[in-house]
Every structure is written in C-alpha cells, then in structure tokens.
C-alpha cells in the first residue's frame, strides 16, 4: 500500500488537486455511474428473482413489477452509462482549463531558466512537450481513477447492505469477498506493476539508447563494416528486455484471476449460508438472488485494478509536473512581484562587478563584468562558448538574478519590476520562438495597435519584404514552431518584433548561431545597422553577444567576456 500513497502536503499532491474537478461538477458523473452499476446488479437480481418466482407458478399479476423492473434496469444501465461518460468527460475537460492555468501560473515566474529537467535529459523543447502531455495526462485522475473507485466502492457497499437485508450472513460473506477483492486490486496489482516497472524500465532504456545509437550511426557502421558487431549489441539489449518481461509475465492477469475466483467463492459462500436458511425466513427466489448477485457485483469491481493502474501513471505524470515546476523558485531567479513598476528616465545601462549563476550551479557563469552603455552605443560582447554569454543576456532582461550592480537610467534593476526592466531592455533570443500562427500574429503581440501597412514596413526594414511576398503576405502561417523558417529569417522576425515593441535597448544573443556562415556576416551587418538606426532621430542601443567576428565599423565598443577566474 505504501507504494500508492501520496502525502497530502507533497508537491505531487498539490498538482493532483489541480486536476480534480470540484464536487458539484464531479457529482453528476458519479451519480450516473452509480445508477448504471446498480442497474446491472439490479438487472441480474430481478431476473433471478423473476425466474425463480415464476417457477412457483404464481398468478402472473405478481410478476408484473419484476418484468417491468428487468426491462427498466436493462435500459437504465446502458442509458445512464452513456450519460455518465459524457458528464464525467465534460467535467474533466472543464477542469483542464483550471489545471492548465494553474500550471501556467507556476511556469510564468520560472520560465525560461527555472524549469527543471533531468540532468543530461531532454532539451528545453522536449521538456516542455513532455510537461504539456503530462498535464493532459492528469485529466485521467477524475476520469479513470477517482470516478471508477468511488462508483465501485459505493456499489459494493450498497450491494452488501441490500444482500444483508435479505440474509445478514450472506451480506457478511459478500463483504469479506469484496474486501479481499479491493485488497487484491490495491496491493497485488500495485506490487506486481511496481516490480515490473523497476525491473523492466531500465532495460527498456538501454534498448532504446542502443537502438538510437545504431540507427543514428547506420551510415558510419556501414562505411566501417561495423554493422554485425553493433547489431549484436542491439539484439543483446532486446534479449534483456524479453527475458525480463517473460520472467514477469506471471504477474499479468493475476488480479483479474483473483477477482474471478473471488466472485465464484462469493456465490459458493452465499449458497453455503443460504441453503440451511431456506424455509427459515429465506424464500427460494431470495436464495437465487443472493447466489447470483455476487457475479454482477464483481463485474463492476473489475474496474478497480484498472483504476489503480491508471493512478500509477497519473501520479508519475503529476510528479514530473511538480518536479519541472517547483513551487519554490530557485534562488538564482528574481523574486516575482518585487520592485516598482516605474519606467526609468533614461536608457543608460551600467554594470559594475556584474556576475550571475545558472540555477543549480555552484560556480558563477560569469563574474566581475564592468560596462557602461550609453544611448546609441553598439556594443559587441565576445566570448568563447561556456563564458556565460547567454547568462548575461538573461540577466539583462531579468530572467536571472545577479550579483554586483546592474543599473538602468541610474536605478538599480532589482528595485524595478521585471516588467519595467523589460520595457527598456528587449532580447532577441538565440532561437527566437515563432508561434504556430500567421506572420501577422507573430508580430502583433509585440505591439497590437499597428496597421498591416506598418507591419509590412517593418518587415521591409528587416529585409523580409521579399520573403513575406513569396509566402503570400501577412496571413501566411509560419508553421509549427516556425519549422518552415530558417535561422536567419527567424532572427529577422525577432528583430521586427523588437522594433515594433520599440525597446530603447535591444540585446541579441548569438544571432548568427543557427545561420550558415555565408549568410551570417550579412545578417550581422543588417541587424546592427537596422536595430541601432543611426540615421533615425532616436538612436537605439544595441548589445550583441556573439562568438563570431563582427566588423569593426559597425561597433562602438568591444567587450570580452572571459572565464570568471581571469581578471
């Protein structure tokens, strides 16, 4: 049982609570589920009574109620099951909205640097994909876990009460059988599934690693005559999984077999206590009812082990969600809601002894940076990979907290709200995110009151006029995650957004990282000249963080971001 428990105050439980609809929405599904389950018990009970009573050849009038009951239960069972499924799905979907918003609220202060993945695990994109599918999986908590368990337990209790009224000792034997069934569902099922997961999951991991290794390198393996050797490794991993699965196969179906045996034994027990009672207060039709009813009840109870299995899955999804979105922010992130919402009077940026650390790291990514940036400056910050370039970019837009001093217009950034800082300092990310929408929507959210003509003018400024025309204008979609857009075009779209948002300071994080070398220098030149717009009346400050060389004539100042140990 310990395997199933989730402490009420644990982060996983907090996530699970988000997924469970409130009682008033959840209740109709449970009600109709209960009606359906009781109808199927009632159908068998009334049929059994009807047939046995009919054999006593009473006037047909006495059977009228039972005949109506049999037909009514048959209809009610199917109809209420249909209504149950609809209302429980509807409730789960309604809850999905609250669930997603709840998770989103946890994500907002964390994104992008506070999200936790497994060390060496999937990249950020995969992490988010898994997070979102885990959130959707949580819908199964009300649908496949709570609802069936509540309905099953209520049906069992009500049936035991019903049978007890007919013959108390039969009620007791039925209750014992049902308790054993629930114990089997919870303990046996959970122990078997847990053992299988523990023994097989790591082997599956090995197999999938080796498969990926083999498939990704097939060209190399063919070219180096190494196919047989590596195929042997894949087959060995496959054998490992197969052998472990075969060894655990005995656990499969153990619970359903136990439930089936218990159903029979409950009927047998009812006969054993019922037959001696026959004629002493128990009539023939009632004996048939108590002997047959366990069969119908156990058919309902069969959903309990499935619910337990579903709970294991839901719980591990909830645990991953809780893990990825810690309720307590890492110390390296700015405290949400701190600072005042005030726009600094100037866009001068000063850094003094600035340093920052990535969440979960012990050493600072960079440290001791001194830099003063005046309006209209074009600064290039260079550094090898690992010298903390992206960290710096994220500090400048307050995704990360810092040590030392970072002032905007003379005000310490920490005293301003993060939104106020981002009103001044904008960032074009290394891989700009493009929403799965059209070009217009991908620009409008930066400044939602501009006209199409203004959007086209900005696109022309960043060198995307031709590209937009080729795609058929502003209503053209940029595709899933901007898949149909090259790295350079994505950077230009990001620049267009930054221009629309009219940030006085724009930071570029490795704008040429995903661009082929031939086009990189052209892109760099365009970015620097368009962004700073030296001929315009209000010249903008541009900070480019890059490891590729930038031509001197475009730059007013160069700074080298070194390893923290260097002076």
């Amino acid at each position, binding site marked *: 049982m310990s395997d199933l428990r989730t402490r009420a105050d644990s982060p996983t439980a907090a996530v699970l609570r988000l997924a469970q609809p409130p009682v008033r929405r959840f209740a109709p599904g449970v009600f109709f589920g209960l009606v359906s389950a009781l109808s199927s018990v009632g159908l068998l009970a009334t*049929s059994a009574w009807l047939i046995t009573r009919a054999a006593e050849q009473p006037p047909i009038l006495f059977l009228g109620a039972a005949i109506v009951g049999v*037909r009514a239960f048959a209809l009610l069972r199917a109809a209420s099951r249909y209504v149950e499924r609809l209302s429980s799905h509807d409730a789960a979907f309604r809850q*999905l909205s609250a669930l997603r918003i709840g998770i989103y609220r946890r994500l907002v202060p964390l994104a992008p640097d506070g999200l936790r993945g497994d060390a060496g695990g999937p990249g950020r994109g995969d992490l988010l994909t898994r997070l979102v599918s885990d959130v959707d999986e949580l819908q199964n908590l009300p649908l496949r876990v709570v609802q069936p368990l509540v309905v099953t337990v209520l049906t069992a209790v009500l049936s035991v009460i019903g049978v007890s009224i007919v013959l108390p000792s039969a009620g007791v034997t039925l209750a014992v059988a049902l308790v054993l069934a629930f114990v089997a569902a919870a303990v046996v099922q959970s122990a078997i599934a847990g053992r299988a997961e523990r023994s097989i999951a790591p082997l599956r991991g090995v197999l999938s690693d080796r498969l990926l*290794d083999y498939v990704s390198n097939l060209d190399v393996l063919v070219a180096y005559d190494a196919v047989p*050797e590596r195929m042997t490794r894949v087959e060995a991993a496959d054998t490992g*999984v*197969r052998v472990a699965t075969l060894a655990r196969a005995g656990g499969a179906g153990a619970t359903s077999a136990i439930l089936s045996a218990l159903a029979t034994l409950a009927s047998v027990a009812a006969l054993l206590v019922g037959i001696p009672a026959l004629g002493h207060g128990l009539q023939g039709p009632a004996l048939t009812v108590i002997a047959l009813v366990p069969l119908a009840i156990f058919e309902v109870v069969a959903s309990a082990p499935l619910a337990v299995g579903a709970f294991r899955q839901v719980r591990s999804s909830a645990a991953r969600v809780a893990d990825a979105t810690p309720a307590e922010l890492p110390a390296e992130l700015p405290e949400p809601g701190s600072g005042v919402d005030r726009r600094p009077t100037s866009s001068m940026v000063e850094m003094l002894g600035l340093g920052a650390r990535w969440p979960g790291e012990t050493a600072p990514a960079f440290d001791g940076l001194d830099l003063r940036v005046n309006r209209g400056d074009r600064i290039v910050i260079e550094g090898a990979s690992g010298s903390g370039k992206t960290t710096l970019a994220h500090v400048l837009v307050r995704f990360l907290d810092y040590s030392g001093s970072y002032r905007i217009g003379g005000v310490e950034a920490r005293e301003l709200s993060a939104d106020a800082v981002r009103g001044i300092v904008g960032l074009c990310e290394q891989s700009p995110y493009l929403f*799965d929408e059209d070009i217009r929507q991908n620009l409008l959210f930066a400044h939602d009151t501009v006209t199409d003509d203004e959007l086209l003018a900005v696109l022309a400024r960043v060198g995307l006029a031709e590209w937009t025309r080729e795609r058929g204008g502003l209503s053209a979609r940029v595709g899933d995650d901007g898949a149909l857009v090259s790295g350079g075009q994505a950077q230009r779209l990001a620049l267009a957004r930054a221009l629309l948002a009219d940030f006085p300071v724009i930071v570029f994080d490795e704008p040429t990282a995903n661009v082929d070398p031939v086009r990189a220098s052209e892109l760099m030149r365009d970015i620097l000249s368009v962004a700073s717009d030296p001929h315009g009346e209000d010249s903008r400050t541009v900070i480019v963080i890059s490891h590729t060389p930038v031509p001197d004539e475009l730059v007013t100042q160069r700074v080298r971001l070194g390893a923290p140990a260097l002076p």
Partner: protein
Amino acid sequence: MRPLDPRLLRYAAAARTFIGMGVVLGIVRTASTLAFCVLLSQAIVGAIGGRSLGELAPGILALAGVGIVRAGAIWAMDVASARGAATVKSQLRRRLVAGITRLGPGWLGTRNRVDVVTTAGPALDALDGYFSLFLPQIVLTAIATPLVIVTIFLQDVLSGILVVVALPLIPVFMILIGLATQAVQRRQWSVLAQLSSRFLDVVGGLATLKIFGRQHRQTARIATLTEDYRVETMKVLRLSFLSGFALELIGSLSVALVAVSVGLRLVDGSLALSVGLFVLLLAPEAFLPLRQVGANYHAAADGVAAAEDVFDILDAAMAVTAEAPATRGGTGSLVERELRFSEVSVRYEGRAAVDRFSAVIRPGRLTVLAGPSGSGKSSLLAALLGFVPSDGTIEIGDAVLVADRRSLTAWAGQGAPLLEGTISSNVSLGDAAPDLALVRRALDLAALAEVDPGIAVTVTGSGLSGGQGERVVAARAMYRALARHCPVVAFDEPSAALDRRAEAELLRGLRQLADAGYTVLVVSHRPAVIAAADDLIELGVVHV
C-alpha cells in the same frame, strides 16, 4: 484495421504459437463457464426442491473447483498474452533492425530517425494492448460464442433465437457508429489538432511572451482555447460514446428479454426452472467476448497502427535487392588510386542536388571540395559510399561496385555523433583486433595528441567538446585508412567546430596522409582549408 493481420503471422512466428495457446485456453475457459452455469443452477434448483446442504455439497464443491479452474484459465491466458506480446515484439524488432540495415543509410536519410527508433521501441509496445485485450477476445469470440449459442439452443430454442438475432446487431452498430464518428472526426480533425497544440505553443513561447510583457494576458487565452477544445471534443464524444451505449444496450436488453420470456414460460409450466436459470446465466456469456472486442477495438487499433508502420518498413526491406558483395577488400599495402566522378547526378524527390558533376581526385594530393550550403557537397560523398542513388559513374581505380568503393574508402561524416564505448573503440570501429598504437597515431594525426583513448563515451556524452568529437571522427577515418590501406580518405567539414589553431593542426595531419600517397578529399568552406588545398573544386548552387 483487420482483426488479424496475416503479416503478423508471417513476420512473427510466435504469434502463431500464441493463437494456438489461445484456442486451447479458450476451450478450457468456455467449458468451465458452461460447467459453472450448470452446477450453480442445479445447486439452486436442488436447494429449492428441498435437498439439504449435505446432499448438495459435492455439487457446490465442484462449483468452487470449476470457478478456480476458470480463474486459472483467465490467468493462463493473460500470462500467455504477456509472453506472446514480449516474444512477438522481440521478433518484430529484430527483423525491423535487419530491415532498416538492409534499406540502408540512404533510406534513413529520408526519415526522421527518432521516429524510426520510436517505431522499433515504444510504438511496438503499443502491441501489448492488442495482445492482452484484443486478440484473446477475438479467439474467445471464435470459440466461446458458437459453443454457448449451441448450448442455449439445445436447452431452449426460443432463447437461442433471441440471442442469435441480437448478436449480429453488435458489429452492425459498431460499424455504423464507427463510420459516423470517423466522419465527424475527419471534419473536426484539423480544429482539434490545432486546439490541442495551442497550449504547448503558449508554454513554448513563454520566454518570448515575457520579453514583450505579454505573459499576464495568457490565462484568459488558455481558458478560451481550452473551452473551445472541450466544446469541439464533446461534439465528437457524444457520437463516439454511442457505440458503447449500443454495446451495453444490446447486451443487457437481450438478457432482459431472455429473462422475461423464460419467466413467462415458467409460469405456465412449459419450461423447467433448471433450464431457465441455466439459460439466464449463460445468455450474457454469449455476448461477453464480442462486447470486449468492441470495447477494446480502439486500444487495439492503436497497437495495430503501430505494427502497420513496422510492417511497411519490413515490406519495403523485402522489396530491396541486397547489394552485390564486395569483390575486393583493403590490400596488404597501399596502392595509389584515383577517384573519378563522371557525369554524376543526385536527385532527391526530383530535385537535383548534384547535376552532372565530373572530376578526377588524384592520389598524393589534398583536394578540397568547396561551395555554399546546398550545393551538393555532402551528397557527392553520400553517392560515393552508395548511401543515395546516383546517375553517372563513380570509380576508385577500376572499382565501380558500391561495396568495393566502400571497402576502398575511409570516410568521416559531418557532425557525426560518437558511438557508445570508448574513444579508442570509436577510432578503431569495425576492426575486430584493434591496434592501440595505430589508434594513438590516428589521434595524433587528427590533432588530438592530448586525449586519452580510454575515455568512455556514453549516451549523455563523453566530456569531449564538440571540436574534439569532430576530430575523433576524423581520427576514425585516418585509422581505417592506415589499418586497411584504403586509398581514398574523405572528410566532410572536419573543422566546422574547430578554432584556428586546431584547424591548422588537423590540416597538417591531412597533408601527411596526402604525402603518404592517399587520395585525400575534404569537403569544406573554411578559408584555411581552401588555402591548404592542392586542388580546389568549387561547386555552385544547382538551379533547377
């Protein structure tokens, strides 16, 4: 979906064994169900007829025994399903890996590799549902349903007729409702797919939204799009749940009709109670397997759809003719050979990546193939190794066959990940008896003098930088060239992630190879590499 794909039986022999077991266990299970119903109804009828518990004890004991046997049959069936699924998956997976190998890197290049791995791993696991929920029920339907119906007919013809009339309604309704659901789903598919990916889009773009101060507005948007998602999904569900409704209704109504008709005939004495009870207990059993088939149809269909991908790959692999084996391997000593491309074209889906390229790459020289991305440089190397189909001829000396060219070439691909093992095993890849001194020499040539060949490479990495990994790949080609005396050594962008000093060192290694008489071909657009070339071939972008 076909309930039982003949390809499953063809490609996975274990599936046949499983179905054989299923038939035997299905018979045991049906027999014990029949015995259970007989014994239970007789015990009740006997008790009502006034017999004592002592007289009825043997029957009741047998009833318990039969119940245990039935539970045992259920368990055995589930165990057989789990074992069958594991064995079949293993057989299919091995065939799949062999099939992928036969189809080769060229075929893989047109696929998403992660998808292919998913097909061989998690997607095959979806067959578990097919094996545990669907196939046993299909077998049981084939065995139990006719047996039960015949038994009912033998006992009570009228009830038999009722069951036989109602039973075919199940597949009829399933199919009709299934078709209607499909139509609605098809109509709504794009709407649903879009709505379900929107939340991911908001979450994925959260950092961007924060930059523009738009993160606070999104909760309303999430609420709206989730509400739309609910409304659209419920439209589909209202229809698709009808199939479950039909299954339940037909099942329970037929039991009700049997009960009422039996009851009425009991009143006028035309039927015995033992028969009536027996038929009542048996009637649901006639419907149960088919109801299970219907209820698990979708889970099974998912599994079969996954298997479908596997079968498609296997069918494609069967259609490929194995390439001619190599007629010559590396020679005992290096023989200088030139590499000739004559009128070589490579096409991907009709688009020419390389158009009638001709060149002679000479031994003892460092030849650089330059050109912007998209000009077909890597395609030429792929054609040399036979990874993509090409027109024209590619020869190394007088060797024309793909397998021969391959055995005469040492190739270092671009951005190739390292294999699990050690640096040393990566460098000496394909050599059954690695020569450690030669590994050292290849690493030195590839400007990796400082690297310890014993470092382990795991899935999560090796602790090597990108540039070092790149040089290990180059060292691998050098090792092969030196160990097997492959006359042609080809490098694809070997210095893309190197700084200038490392690049210069690597170029010295390439120069040594050329001086030793190897035909060295380097694909690169780096100025330092181009400057070091003895011969330079520039490819332009191919215009269609």
